[in-house]
């Protein structure tokens, strides 16, 4: 290829993790949509039903990994898109710090929610 259009520098750790999380998310996101729109209708979701699913350790671990992979993939994607738009210097560092904190906060909140759903609080 004469050129490649990508927001990522090839060969870096971020590039590799973006692809590994992508492969995982393709499978789990499809499962999540099927589970909560076709197997169980979203309009019929109740706390008791959610708890019955979430107290299964395998489901709980899958959902927490889904959260971590989704957050990393999304936040890393946004960061690289902004860098690709020409973000540099102090601005780049501030954006990285803000996005990292937002990502960590989202994962922490999500895990707290998952633990509450499982009834382990």
């Amino acid at each position: 290829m004469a050129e490649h259009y990508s927001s990522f520098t090839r060969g870096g750790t971020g590039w590799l993790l973006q692809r590994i999380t992508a492969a995982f998310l393709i499978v789990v996101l499809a499962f999540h949509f099927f589970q909560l729109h076709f197997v169980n209708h979203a309009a019929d979701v109740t706390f008791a039903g959610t708890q019955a699913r979430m107290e299964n350790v395998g489901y709980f671990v899958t959902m927490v990994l889904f959260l971590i992979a989704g957050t990393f993939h999304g936040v890393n994607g946004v960061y690289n898109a902004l860098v690709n738009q020409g973000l540099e210097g102090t601005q780049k560092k501030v954006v990285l710090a803000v996005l990292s904190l937002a990502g960590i906060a989202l994962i922490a909140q999500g895990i707290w929610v998952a633990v509450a759903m499982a009834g382990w609080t």
Partner: protein
Amino acid sequence: MSQSYNRGLIEDFGRWKEFSAGMWAWIFHKFTGWMLIGYLFTHIAVLSTAIGAAAGDPAAIQQETDVYTTTIQGLESLFIIRVLEVGLLAVAVFHILNGLRLLMVDLGVGLSAQDKSFYASLVLTGIITIASVPTFMDGVAI
């Protein structure tokens, strides 16, 4: 010896009429990506009502009157939420299918057909979205 040069911003949207299929795929992938990460933050915010439900009266959970159940069922009773969910599905399906296409491009598989696989992603997204409308709109009226 390798040479580097500044080719400027790739995303010069003023030149959109000159964009190729691969360029459109890249722009759509970014746009859907922004939508999905925005949704993830909203999703966790709504699901956080589970914390209140778990700490509340267990009888409310039995009667399905806890804050988590009433919030989700209340949102699902709104027509606009169902329409937005169909939109979310379309965005997610396109991102997944084009993501598969990107993984193949990265592996060097089928590079000569990368434009055709973009069109295939669009068509498949349309078919899956339309086929899902009856399930997503079940039991709700305007």
